[in-house]
């Protein structure tokens, strides 16, 4: 086996999956948000919900497209770069991936078409149903892929045959493996938080801009509605995420002790571990530099009695230790941002309660700053999880270095460079388009003429209903409009 091919394949997988995860992390929540908006619009007939829907659906379309194409890459990369992994474990996790395609991808892809282009072709109820189905699809997709990923973390329900291939003995055990429930919950919450933060950030930015321009808004403008919705969501979900995250930590502690040791920066196996707030884990020295620690509380945080021995990295031979740097820092970044989210939610809730949320520039600025925090926390958390699993690809059973394809380094280097180039172009363009839309804002996007004077066909908006379309929910009988 070619060591450089291994390293490059790992880099390539890390790069392509990090790119990919950003989009589902956003679109899972956004799809649900759109379903809620459209539902509220149908139900209350309030124009503002429609305006918000039409605004966010355009951002959704862009993000979803990037998520789809970067996801297709992953489904082929298992084969091109990790063929041994599939050759050996395909019989166990293959069905999970196949179920993802069958139950989620087709649903999303088909109803996305109706959602984006079907405004005038189907009635409002069917259109709403399509939005809901897309949202359901994204969640089902998360179910299967996180199940597969969890099985790699905490494998069970399988046996290894004489030729080294894995066979499932019990698929229920495979699917519902020990780390799956907490991981699914943690990831879905992360997705909702990410969306909430983006929606909240964009709304707050718009309100700040209106303030700066001296625009006086009274009552419930679009941005006010979306800000309150987002802040309410964060206020509830961010504390919940702490609880679920803590539960994930307990699962990791039980099933992946080497990961916990890396996350916590424990080198020494002992009872009564400290809590390291900061430090620079050094694999060569097998210790942390510049430690800042609170003695006596580590066991408490892990949820185990003080006198229980918690494994440090010294329990493993060096080549079986995960590289501790990324798990250690990634975890602190994720948790730090999680705490900030809790702060944002709590502060915002208080301001809503006092009816002052639109008049606090400080809070609005904080909300804008926290806009991208979900993405960063997701990436950090993801890296904690995946790097913390090393050197295993299937924890405790199959090493990453035994999973790589029989390809040579130059090939992988070529593909890595190609992906970096293509993704840079796509990501830059996508980010520009999304930011441009965000800057245009919800109202502008609906009323202002497009730069070319005419709306292009094919844009969601082009197919959007005008107020004059008969039979639209905003034109209820008797409505004088």
């Amino acid at each position, binding site marked *: 086996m070619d060591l450089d091919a291994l390293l490059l394949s790992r880099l390539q997988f890390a790069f392509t999956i990090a790119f990919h995860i950003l989009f589902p992390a956003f679109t899972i929540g956004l799809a649900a948000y759109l379903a809620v908006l459209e539902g509220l619009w149908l139900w209350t007939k309030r124009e503002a919900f429609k305006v918000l829907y039409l605004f966010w659906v355009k951002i959704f379309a862009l993000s979803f497209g990037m998520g789809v194409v970067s996801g297709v890459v992953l489904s082929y990369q298992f*084969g091109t770069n990790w*063929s041994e992994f599939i050759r050996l474990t*395909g019989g166990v996790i293959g069905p999970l991936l196949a179920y993802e395609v069958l139950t989620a991808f087709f649903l999303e892809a088909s109803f996305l078409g*109706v959602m*984006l282009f079907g405004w005038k072709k189907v009635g409002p109820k069917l259109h709403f149903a399509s939005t809901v189905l897309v949202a359901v699809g994204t969640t089902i997709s998360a179910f299967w892929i996180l199940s597969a990923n969890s099985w790699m973390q905490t494998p069970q329900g399988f046996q290894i045959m004489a030729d080294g291939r894995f066979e499932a003995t019990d698929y229920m055990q495979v699917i519902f493996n020990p780390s799956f429930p907490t991981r699914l919950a943690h990831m879905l919450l992360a997705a909702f938080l990410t969306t909430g933060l983006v929606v909240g950030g964009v709304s707050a930015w718009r309100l700040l801009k209106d303030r700066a321009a001296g625009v006086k808004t009274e009552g419930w403008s679009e941005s006010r509605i979306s800000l309150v919705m987002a802040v309410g969501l964060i206020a509830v979900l961010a504390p919940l995420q702490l609880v679920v995250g803590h539960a994930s930590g307990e699962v990791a502690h039980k099933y992946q002790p080497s990961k916990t040791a890396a996350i916590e920066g424990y080198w020494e196996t002992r009872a009564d571990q400290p809590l390291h707030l900061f430090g620079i884990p050094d694999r060569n020295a097998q210790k942390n530099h510049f430690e800042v620690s609170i003695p006596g509380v580590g066991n408490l945080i892990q949820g185990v009695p003080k006198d229980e021995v918690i494994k440090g990295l010294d329990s493993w031979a060096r080549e079986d230790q995960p590289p501790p740097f990324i798990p250690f820092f990634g975890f602190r970044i994720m948790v730090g941002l999680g705490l900030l989210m809790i702060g944002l939610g709590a502060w915002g809730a208080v301001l809503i309660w006092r009816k002052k949320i639109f008049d606090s520039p400080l809070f609005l600025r904080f909300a804008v700053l926290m806009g991208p925090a979900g993405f960063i926390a997701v990436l950090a958390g993801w890296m904690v999880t995946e790097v913390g699993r090393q050197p295993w690809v299937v924890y405790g059973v199959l090493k990453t270095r035994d999973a790589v394809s029989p390809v040579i380094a130059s090939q992988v280097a070529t593909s890595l460079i190609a992906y970096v180039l293509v993704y840079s172009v796509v990501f830059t363009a996508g980010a520009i388009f999304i930011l441009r839309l965000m800057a245009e804002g919800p109202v502008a996007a609906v009323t202002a003429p497009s730069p070319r004077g005419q709306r292009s066909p094919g844009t969601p908006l082009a197919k959007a209903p005008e107020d004059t379309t008969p039979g639209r929910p905003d034109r209820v009988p008797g409505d004088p409009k």
Partner: protein
Amino acid sequence: MNLDLQLIWAGLIAVSVLLYVTLDGFDLGIGILFPFAKSPGERDVMMNTIAPVWDGNETWLVLGGGGLLAAFPLAYSVLMPALYLPILLMLAGLILRGVAFEFRFRARNRGRKFWTQMFSGGSILTAVAQGLVLGGFIQGVTVRDDRFAGGQFDWLTPYTLLVAAGLVAGYALLGGAWLMMKTKDNLHGDAKRWTRISALIVTGLLAAVSVATLLIHPRVAARWGFDLHDGFALELAKLLPLLPIPLLGLIGLGIVFVMSRKGSHRWPFVGAILVFLSGYLGLAVGFAPYIVPYALNFRQAAAPDNALGLMLVGTAAILPLILAYTAWVYWVFRGKIDEEAGYHH
């Protein structure tokens, strides 16, 4: 009841690849024909005919890949490294054309031009790469100890390039015929011309690929009753039962030519599909039951029966639903698209 799970799965994957090739084939074909469009307005309409459905079409590729991974992990783990670079090219092409749908409509002046080119270039790249994958596949893969053991450029031969050219022309034919069905007036006229030209090219290339396959692969030739080892011998008993397959292709091409002259808007598309069906069956005859040609048959490569069984339960329940709502989506977006209809002021 004792189901032959391995056989069923081989069939299912074959069908999903065929569905992929025809469905994404026509929308890749639109990208291939893009450079020939007369105006940006025409290109808008062309894209609009496929915008609501391309994503669903592409999902069949994910099912083909994912299904292969799940049902025949050994085949997947041999083929993917063997076809490493063409797969990379295909994915790069798919990314660029996939995002271009949204990006092209969001971009302004220069950006719009760029994404128009990316849509077209990405579609062509995808088609060429798929042709190389197909050619590399038919040509055979070196396997040792259940692993790919060939070189990194095994897939690059005159034969695979010929197959790639054939596939590009084939997709253009599907795309043109699709456009004939979905457009009116000038664009329809252009589509008709593109369809007929593509059909001519396809006729030539299909014949060339067929002959090349027989010449290069004695095993395939033998299946068709030809013995070209030394001189020329023909075993009619083998050839005759297979003749309906090329005949189907000829009928398809005939439909394209005759019905487009007669002014039919739909029949050419049916004809184009028949051409693809015939090509597909023709190839299948050459290498069935191999799933990695001439090295692994589908039984050797299959996942354990419990995996296949579990997936069959889900597939039996869900595939009809998928087909139903896919059909519904096509029905929702039925009918002609014209330049006016695209713009809703």
